[in-house]
């Protein structure tokens, strides 16, 4: 019996599943730079971000995506950072954003 061609297919639930434990590489980033936890997603970092004007870089979003375990996206977007440091000057919670972004960028293996 050949499989019927339905003309559509099913997709998994898009909802984030929070119950899964944090990925070890996410855990490692959070341990190496604990100040990331202080982010309250106010968006001041993204407002002043030099690279964010041209690229999808917005630090507070990377933090949210890091918690969600989207390591690859975080790693890719962190590559856009120019390390100008304006975000760190403006962060009201004193997050060490430059170090955080370096750790995030290192989530991707270096290009050969």
């Amino acid at each position, binding site marked *: *019996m*050949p*499989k*019927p061609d*339905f*003309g*559509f*297919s*099913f*997709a*998994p*639930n898009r909802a984030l599943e929070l119950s899964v434990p944090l990925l070890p590489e996410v855990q490692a980033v959070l341990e190496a730079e604990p100040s990331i936890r202080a982010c309250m997603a106010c968006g001041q970092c993204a407002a002043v971000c030099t690279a964010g004007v041209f690229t999808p870089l917005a630090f507070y979003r990377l933090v949210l995506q890091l918690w969600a375990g989207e390591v690859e996206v975080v790693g890719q977007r962190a590559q856009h950072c120019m390390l100008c440091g304006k975000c760190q000057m403006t962060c009201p919670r004193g997050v060490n954003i430059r170090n955080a972004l370096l750790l995030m960028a290192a989530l991707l293996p270096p290009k050969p």
Partner: protein
Amino acid sequence: MTPLLWKDYQKEVPDNHYFFVRSCIRQTFFPGAEAALLDILRNSLGLDIFEDRRHTTCTGIAYHCDLVPLETIMTVIARQLSLMTEAGYRHLLVSCVTSFGIYLEMLDMWQHHPEMLEQTREALWKSTRRTFELPTALVHTSDLIYHLRKPIADRSPHRLVDKSTQRALRVVDHVGCHYAKIFPAGGFGGAEFPSVLSGLAETFGGEMVDYPERRHCCGFGFRHYMLQENRGYSVSNSRIKFESMEAFAPDLILTNCPGCNMFLDRWQYTLAEMSGKTYDGEGKGIPVLSHEELAALMLGRDPWTLGLQMHQVQLEPLLDKIGIAYQARQKYSMVEGVAGVPREPGVLKVSFE
């Protein structure tokens, strides 16, 4: 405090004298269910249920596909009410859950915007020379079956119990979204803990099983199901429900909405063929019944006159558990002699030796 607790959502259901309106989907896929409902109400319980052959679709499916303006559906509804008024009835009995939601919505609009009621009266008069009164009771057929569950159970030879082990059958329910999510006070138990099906299953001796996605939509999606390429929406949402109920090993899925009943049946077949997965652990799928089908079976009606052979997930394993006798050879026989049998699906098991 004002009582707003789910257990306090009890609605008034008149005992008798109803004007009945049919469901497009129910009569298309489950013709035996509507016939059985009328048979039970009229012949087993002796009620006065009137149907006017001039009533039409409420246009609800088209309305939720955004093809029918509000003014139009309102006037179509007014025309149905005009037939009800003309026949001397004030209690409306609705077979379809989409329709039920539409009637609730229109009555609510007319109550809060009396000028719209006047506009509707005018539009109906201009287009058809008809007038109408509002119903004093708006009742879904599952409301009425729930209301009459004790007299029905008293007349029933069967119970939702495994005959060989005396174990109560595990029932999961799926209440159509438009039954009480739009107007919680319109349904037994409200939007969050509707009791219209669970109360029915428990009266027949079944064990209700609450499951995480109990209140999730079956995924009809109106336009999404009506368009072949969009049906991924529908099947994926039903799949969310199946995945969620699987761990609770239900014997039966009970529904009150004709669309949900069809989808929860057909998507089990579709998912089995697409992914090889069934949710009963045996490859047969979880049987799906609507409130009328359940009541008719419990009362001892013949499964094949009830049209259960039109389900894709087969009911025989459930009938055997309950101990309902059936003529296997009658299943596919027709008024005009024996017909062919449906082809067997690739994955979903439909014959059991």
